[in-house]
């Protein structure tokens, strides 16, 4: 066995998996982005409505494992209402945390800390990353005036 199951499937994660946030479709969106991990078959659709530099609302539909669903749900919950800059910074921190780099989460976001357990299951890290990378990619494309992003977190297999 790789590591105790509960290290990965923590209560907070299980809660997000069972009742994922951000599943309400949005009537109007500013940008959308798709993420896929072909080797898992994971597919993630993400749409964002901005207002005055704030993430007004976010829709995430993830077909994937508990980790990718929970991670997407946590993203939706976290960035909603945050400024673009703040959302970006959080996504960056989560990415670093998952990649095992030293990264300090803001105090009010300790829920995200529960994603740490995934690091003990190296093949699942890309599942946890998918939503965050897809979000950042979409945002970047939006800021540079590109179209819809297409992302995967399988770069390093």
């Amino acid at each position, binding site marked *: *066995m*790789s590591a*105790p*199951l509960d290290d*990965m*499937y923590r209560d907070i994660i*299980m809660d997000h*998996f*069972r009742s994922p946030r951000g599943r309400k479709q949005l009537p109007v969106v500013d940008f959308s982005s798709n993420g896929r991990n*072909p*080797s*898992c*078959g*994971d*597919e993630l659709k993400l749409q964002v409505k901005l207002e005055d530099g704030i993430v007004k609302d976010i829709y995430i539909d993830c*077909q*994937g*494992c*508990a*980790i*990718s669903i929970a991670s997407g749900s946590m993203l939706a919950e976290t960035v909603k209402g945050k400024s673009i800059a703040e959302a970006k910074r959080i996504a960056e921190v989560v990415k670093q945390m998952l990649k095992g780099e030293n990264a300090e989460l803001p105090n009010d976001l300790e829920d995200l800390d529960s994603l740490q357990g995934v690091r003990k*299951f190296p093949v*699942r890290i890309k*599942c946890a990353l998918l939503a965050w990378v897809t979000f950042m990619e979409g945002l970047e494309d939006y800021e540079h005036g590109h179209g819809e992003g297409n992302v995967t977190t399988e770069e390093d297999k």
Partner: protein
Amino acid sequence: MEQKIQNEPLPLRSRLTPIEIERIRADFPILEQVIDGNRLIYLDNAATTQKPRVVINAISDYYRKYNANIHRGLHYLSERATEMYEHTREHAARFLGGVDPSEVIFTRGTTEAINLVAYTWGEQNIREGDEIVITEMEHHANLVPWVQLAKRKHAVLKRIPITPDGYLDLTNINEIITPRTKLLAISHMSNVLGTINHVADLAAKAHEHGAVVLADGAQAAPHLAVDVKALGVDFYALSSHKMLGPTGVGILYGRRDLLQEMPPFNLGGEMIREVRFDNVTWADLPYKFEGGTPNIADVVAFDAALHYLEEIGMDRLRQHEMDLTRYTIEQLSAIPGIEIQGPKEVEQRGGAISFTDADLHPHDISTYLDAKGIAIRAGHHCAQPLMRVLGKIATARASIYVYNNEADINALIKALRGMRRYFGL
């Protein structure tokens, strides 16, 4: 339209008994492993099988007593090593139903065997507008080489679809296999659905149109008695590591006249007759296709694997697997939320059993089972196009081999029930 295999079940008294299975299990050191307090339950046999002590010892023995480079060596070790290496070739030729040893080419595995055909026969024979027929259930190894060959040659890739229950759908077969068909490349047994395909019938049909037939035997050869002549195929590929043998060894069987016409694949030592700076002539079969130092030790040890399988008897092995597959399918079907892919009739299938849970991704299933000491595989099983056809993003797959028993399946079933509770389903 589906075709079914007629099987005479073995009489009860000649089946493998639980005691024999226990004895077989005892031959596999890894099955004694206890991981974090759980006995290892290995149900990932379609990915690779475990090795009996005789195979492991054959490798050590080779390196302790006989190791040398083969062919052309005029010293004792080299002669012995050559003899042992060629002995496996003769054995494999018999194992495949009695072909000529010169038709048996050692490769790294099924993948290399199929690529060899694509790079040599394919490069030489496929032309613009020709048609290559595959099925929707192919492993990437029997798919990607043909997708790329078709692209390179502007040939057409056609596929035989599958029915909802995982058989080949032969309704329109006469529109698929036609006089334009140059190659039929078909899995003998699906690594996802378990389906045993009717290779002989399809090969006959393809041959009517003058096509060449390649069967991917990676999953079939470990579980069925294979007679390539009776199947009527021109090429047959298999992997040692999926049939108790070492990693790094595979076989390409090829019909002699085809092999003779084909250019060589890996160029270098051993596969030449004469080399000049401006001209090279090739060695005879099978050496023409074995350039460079082969994986000698593992080829030698593969002999022990074939011997081990023959000692059990492929028909008894098959009967045991049918019985265990039936049991597994029954038990799995009784778990709410679990859906089984592929044929339900055990006569028509092998013991690679793919399933999905309505609420859980296969990766979560696999991670959960791993925590209970149960090894299965989850994902696309190198068959992404099939996943799309099935409408699944992935499946979980438990796959059995001769050393598995009901206790293994019971552990799997118990764990799957526990899993649904764990995830609150």
